């Protein structure tokens, strides 16, 4: 257990009579990029929500970097090194890009954005230099996704959970985001929820498949995409 970065065992989550997660086991090693796929409503985002502390689990256990995190407040889980992005991009819309980044830098313990160890490098890498004075709500979706990512990376996370990182982007933007994510993969442990199979195939070292809150497969992307159950339940009878 101690070698695992994320170790979720027999995790259960119910919403009234609906079992959103059914004894789900997910583990991830440091440096690994884990993909999670499944139809809409299969429990992927719920899984991220329980891991990051936004929802309480009904049964099971979750360990991160060797310590239990189930039941801890989201800010404590973030401080432990686990951060996430959202399906519908989430930034402080009325604040400027600089103010958004400054908040994250200060939260990480830096004195300011400018003195943040890798703040300037991140801003350059994510091409936000020219947009620092702009109000976040006025950015394009692709710029907002980059800002969202920069804010999380300023926290110096051990694991970044990305919920549909290319959702809503154009084909050209998906290509650019893929290049960023590929570089990100070399520096961080990633957990990626995505419907775009190209992203999963190119990024993930291993893939977990959820259907109706149940894990039905876990393995290498190529094997998973050939798995009959995955094809029947998720890929709709067509091989990817």
């Amino acid at each position: 257990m101690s070698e695992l970065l994320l170790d979720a065992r027999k995790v259960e989550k119910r919403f009234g009579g609906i079992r959103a997660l059914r004894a789900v086991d997910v583990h991830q090693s440091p440096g690994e990029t884990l993909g999670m796929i499944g139809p809409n409503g299969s429990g992927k985002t719920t899984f991220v929500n329980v891991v990051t502390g936004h929802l309480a689990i009904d049964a099971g256990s979750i360990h991160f970097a060797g310590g239990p995190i189930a039941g801890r407040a989201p800010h404590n889980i973030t401080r432990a090194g686990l951060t996430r992005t959202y399906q519908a991009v989430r930034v402080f819309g009325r604040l400027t890009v600089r103010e958004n980044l400054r908040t994250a830098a200060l939260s990480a313990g830096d004195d300011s954005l400018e003195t943040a160890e890798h703040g300037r490098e991140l801003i350059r890498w994510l091409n936000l230099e020219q947009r620092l004075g702009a109000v976040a709500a006025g950015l394009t979706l692709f710029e907002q996704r980059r800002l969202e990512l920069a804010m999380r990376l300023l926290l110096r996370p051990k694991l970044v959970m990305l919920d549909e990182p290319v959702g809503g982007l154009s084909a050209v933007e998906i290509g650019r985001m893929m290049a960023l994510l590929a570089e990100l993969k070399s520096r961080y442990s990633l957990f990626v929820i995505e419907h775009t199979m190209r992203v999963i195939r190119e990024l993930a070292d291993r893939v977990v498949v959820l259907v109706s809150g149940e894990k039905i497969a876990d393995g290498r992307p190529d094997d998973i995409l050939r798995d009959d159950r995955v094809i029947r339940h998720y890929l709709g009878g067509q091989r990817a």
Partner: protein
Amino acid sequence: MTSADSRRSRMLWLGGAALAVAVPLAVAGNRFAAFIVGIVFVHILWTAGMNLLYGYTGLVSMMTAGIAGIGAYVTTNLVMSHGWSFWLAMPVSAVGAAAVGVILGLPALRLRGFYFVLSSLVIQSAVTLVFVYFPQFTNGDTGITQIPHPRLWLPGEGAVELKGAAFEILLGLLAFAGVGIVHLIVRSRMGAFIMAIREDDLLAEELGIDVTRYKVLVFFIGSLLMGVGGAFYASYVGFISPRSFDVLVSLNIWLMVAFGGRGTILGPIIGCIILVPIPFVLQDLYMLKDIFYGLLIIVVTVAMPAGVYGTFLQRRRAREQAAVAALETSRRAAERIAAQ
């Protein structure tokens, strides 16, 4: 912050401190005007606390007058019934009011938006009822009269009653200090965090900010300013009753912040300077007073939803953004031409 900004900020603060002293001296000959100035200063202190809660943290608390009332009643009781010095009673009751403010603010940790406003309204009404139904401490609806002014010990003079322009100067410096405290908080790490909470507390939590801790802290500091203001109000006016701290007063404090510009340092001060004197100045036209007050608020909230100063800042920011965008467009055009 550039050195020019820092110089301008220093000048503004020096100017503010000078005004806090100069205005009471300028109107010292007219007690009616001087009294209004004193009341404006107390309201600036109250709105500083409200601005921290509502303007910067997004907590629309409608129980601020109740908290100020606790500061006022506890101080008055300690001074008049137990013989405490005002200078000891005031901080003790202000800290007490702040502690009560934290406890009464606990619903804010669970409730958001409209639901918190509603709960704070209920709490304010309950606090007002406590002021009415515990006459042994508050003298009920009749209120407490002849509250003594604080006394200052001066070398050679002994204990001297604080009154007239000297009291107004003290209130001015107090208001200045209250606004200064809020300004320092806003510029600090805590300021960045509470503004993040105001914008999206879920995202703030996600970024590792302890939302509960900062909300409690904001309630404590905001309530402390209210409590100090309440203690000085009681001793300045010399009379308090449950109506001095009822829900309408809470609403007015909120209104002054919204009217001037929530989440700005100068906005609430402008709100106080414009709105506080209206009931005094128009007291002979009592039929028109409320109509004028209401119309002014409607016109400003419709024409300037971010308040007088807030709208000014928004427009200036929009102009700056447009200028930057125009500059960027011309830079790109120049690059294109150079490339051809």
